Each structure stands twice: as C-alpha cells, then as structure tokens.
C-alpha cells in the first residue's frame, strides 16, 4: 500500500516537472512516434519483396510488432536503468538511494520513470487493431484480460533482463557496452522466432527470453495453436526472470563499494 501511495506521489511530482518543460515533452513524444514509424516502414519494405516470412503473413508480423510496442512502452516508462552504472555507481547517487527507507530498485524506478513513453502503447494498440482488422480477428471477452496479463509478463521479462545487466556494475568496475547490444537483441523478439535458426531460437526463449515480449504472446491472439503453450508461459517467465533479477539486485547491493569522494 505504502509503495503504491509513494508511486503516485512520484508520478504527480513527475507531471509537475514535465509540465514546466512542455516543449521538451512534445519533442520526446514526437521522436518516439517517429522511431516507431521507422520500424513499421522497415517491416513494410521487407514485405514489398515477399509475401510470406517463414510462413507468417505481412499483417501477422505487423500485429506482432504492434503487440511488442505495448510491453516495450511500459518497460521504457519504468525501467530506465540503461545508465545505471554511470549515474548511480560512478557518481555515487546510490549512496543517497540507500539512505532512504524504500527498496533501492523501486526508488530508481520512481526517479527514472519517463511516462511519455507510454504513448508507445497507444501506437501499439492502434497497430494491432489495424492488423487484426485486415486479418479478420475477432475479440472474445477473455482477450483483454489475457492481453493485460501477457503485456505485464512481457514487461517483467524485459525489466528482469535489464536489471540483471545493470547488476553487473555491482561486480565489475568497468563500464560495459552490453546495454546497447541488449537493446538490439531485444528487437529480435518482434519477429517470429521460427525464422531464426534453432540456437538463436533457444536463446530467445530460455536465455534472453525476448521472444516472450513479442511473438509468443502475440501468437495467441493470432490463433497459432502450436505456440499456445509458450503464450501462456509468458507471465511465468516474466515473474521468474524478474524475481531472479531482484535477488541478484539485492545481493549486488550488499557488494556495493560506494564511490570515493
């Protein structure tokens, strides 16, 4: 309860600050939308040359992309920990975090949220409706709930992986360039995994389970029964990965050596 109250306190504060820099806000939303448009155009260009990609039609792939945008938007709103090493370890901001009576990771999530990224979710849902419409998909009563469940699962998968990577900073001094690489790998989850070879598929399912952010849960709504098992694994994988990442985080905080003054 306390955490939920604090969350809304921070959100209110965030809005107040953001309103002061309105121009910034619009530029950011605009560049987010532009980024999504570029990705969509890429998919369209690929399908300008072919009608099927590993047995998936153009609209199906657009649908997956639309789905992917939703958990990704949630992730980028709340888990801006890509600069955790520089900001919190090197500059020693974690000292401050650790002297406050709230879980350290939760504080970082609160401090670093970027709510304007949530607009990505709106785009994503619009893209899904467009693609779903041309595929003639029907919406059943359970779909919105499952959608929510899968989206949260996907967000936790993303969050878990990036928290684990941020945790490297607790053990290693040097900056790593894993973060940007991981953002690239994350994008593979947007495409049907069966177009990749089996090793990549295995990695995307069990090691860096980005496939659970895009293709697996989306396959459920596309009625691809051979993937249903994976679809329903989405929240499980999400909770497992996120749980593990929290454990690693907690033991990382114990190893924190602080920054010198």
């Amino acid at each position: 309860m306390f955490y939920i109250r604090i969350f809304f306190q921070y959100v209110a504060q965030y809005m107040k600050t953001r309103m002061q820099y309105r121009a910034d806000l619009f530029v950011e939303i605009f560049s987010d939308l532009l980024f999504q448009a570029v990705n969509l155009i890429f998919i369209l260009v690929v399908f300008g040359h072919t009608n099927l990609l590993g047995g998936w039609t153009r609209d199906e792939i657009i649908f997956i992309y639309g789905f992917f945008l939703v958990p990704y938007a949630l992730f980028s709103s709340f888990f801006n920990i890509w600069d955790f090493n520089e900001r919190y370890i090197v500059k020693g901001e974690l000292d401050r975090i650790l002297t406050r009576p709230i879980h350290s990771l939760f504080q970082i999530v609160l401090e670093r949220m970027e709510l304007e990224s949530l607009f990505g979710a709106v785009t994503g849902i619009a893209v899904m409706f467009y693609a779903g419409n041309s595929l003639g998909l029907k919406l059943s009563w359970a779909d919105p709930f499952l959608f929510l469940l899968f989206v949260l699962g996907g967000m936790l998968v993303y969050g878990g992986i990036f928290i684990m990577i941020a945790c490297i900073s607790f053990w290693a001094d040097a900056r790593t360039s894993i973060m940007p690489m991981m953002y690239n790998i994350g994008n593979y989850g947007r495409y049907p995994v069966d177009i990749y070879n089996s090793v990549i598929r295995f990695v995307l399912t069990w090691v860096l389970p980005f496939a659970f952010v895009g293709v697996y849960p989306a396959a459920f709504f596309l009625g691809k029964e051979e993937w249903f098992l994976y679809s329903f694994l989405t929240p499980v994988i999400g909770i497992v990965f996120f749980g593990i990442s929290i454990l690693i985080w907690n033991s990382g905080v114990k190893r924190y050596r602080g920054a010198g003054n």
Partner: protein
Amino acid sequence: MKDAITVRNLKKEFKAYSSRSGLKGAFRDLLTRNYKIVPAVNDISFNVKQGEMVGYIGENGAGKSTTIKMLTGILTPTSGGVIVNGMNPHRDREKFVSTIGVVFGQRSQLWWDIAVQESFRLLKKVYKVSDEQYESHMAHVIKTLDIEPLLDKPVRKLSLGQRMRCELAAALIHNPPLLFLDEPTIGLDVLVKLRIREFLKEINKKYNTTILLTTHDLTDIEALCERVVMLDDGKVIYDGALKSLKEKWGEGKEIEFQFLEEVELADLNKITASSEVKWEKDEKKAIFTAVVEDDDELISLLIAKVVAALKIKDINIKETSTEEIIRNIYDRGIS
C-alpha cells in the same frame, strides 16, 4: 544512558586492482588481474552515547567516509559488528534509515529540478511523517535556518550555502535521533557556517540528537564537539575529549611580535640565544612568531629580552591551535 552507536572491531577491506605496465601487461591483465586487499577501515571500536556530538576526523583516505557509510548501512562491513540505534544498519537497512538523518556535503539529497518545498513534501511522504509532526517540527527548522524565502525555488538555482541549509533541513524532516554529517560546511562562507553550527547545537539541546560529524574544518569541531575520534590509516589513534587532546599535544605557545623597525630573523635569534625558542617569520605581514614551551616563566623572560632590545608595535600570545596539534600528530604519529 543508551548507546546510539556501538562499533566493535569493525573492518572493511577493498580489493584494489593494479594494472601492469605496457601493452604486454595489458594483455596479461585480461587473463589474471593483480589485486591486493587494502583495508580502508582496520579493526576500529568505539561507542557514541545518545545526545553526544562527536567529531570524526582524519586525513583524506583515513577511512572516515567508509566508516560513515558502514554506519549508515550503505556499505557492508567485511567483519566486525555495528549496532546503530539498536539495529544492524546493513541488514535492517530500510527500517533503520528512517531513524537517521544523513547529509553528505558533496552530494545533494534534494531533487535538482523541483522546488525545495516539493522535495520536502516528497521526503515527508517517504518517511511517513504526519502533517502535525511536520508542521510543528519543520516550521521551527525552516525558521532557524532561514530558508523560508528559498522554499519555492528549484534546487539548481540555489547557491551552495542556500542549498546546504536546505539539505540540512531535508535530513531532519523525520526528526531523527541520530544525524550523520559528512563535511557539512565544505566550501561555505563564515556566516553560513556559524548559522549551521548554532542550529546543530540547538537541535542537539532540544531533541537530544546525537551528531556524528566529519570535517576538514577543525573550527567546526572546536565549536561543536567535546569529543573527537581521530582516524589514521584505518585505525583509531585518538578517542577522547578535545580538551585533553589539546593539553596533551598542545605543547608550547606561540608569541607573535610586530616591530616598529626592520628586523631580521638572525637578530632575534641572537637576542634570545640563551633560551629554547624557535622563530618563524611571516613575510607578508611582517609578523615574527616565537614558538616556546608552555612555561610562564620562560615566556616572560623571552618577552622581556625582546622588548629590551627592540621597539614593539604589537604582541600576541596564542595557544597552539587544534589544527596544528592535529597536523603535528599526523606528522609525528601518536606515541
């Protein structure tokens, strides 16, 4: 009285990696890295009673900050025991930190972009302080620190002195029984320093707040603390009253002379050749300082000799300052 801080055989070691020289060395570093274990805090023990104001002093790298960070739960000790406010700071961290206030002079606790009072409001929620508590306590803090006119300004627009006062107020929002101040007056002008000192004294008196203070500015310590804990190379080398430190180590007094005529150091040495005295000259202000043993007879004799020989503009007898005492201790070591 109850102990606010109990430290037993506390130790913190860091692994320090050293890199080999040259390209070949860099490649070897890839495979196996040389490291040695450096003790930052080496087996220290001390107690602080509730309501005490203790100065924690030492040179850079003596282990002050590391100790403070272990006492506040930021770092885990390598070995040894720390009990602060009846809790283990690192293990019970989230519960523990609401019983302490922390000010790191070089690091802001406040949110950069938002107005000071918004920061306070957020911290009030974070520490679960009720409105009544906040009103009665903070109204007073805000008045004493004179930060009322700053409350609606964002932190980034404040000067260092203004910011520091706000930081101090922020650390006290939940009225903690124990306050850690790490270099709270670094870079501040005299007036702000005085105000902060007055305020700390008042807080200490009013709420019996324990204050642990690290600083390079020994005048802070002189103004506030009766007790000092001195650290060198990760070890406690002195723990006791500031006064007895002065008595024990403040050997000698300084007598400053200003003369009406041109005087050379050699002249003075000749005049006082029979007594045990060391002369120093401050070129800029033309002040000559005689350092002698703290013996009234000796001092009178010295002054008599100088006055008889030279025309004098001003004389000033000073006790050795704490700063000098401590410099001496670090130079020569305690024994």
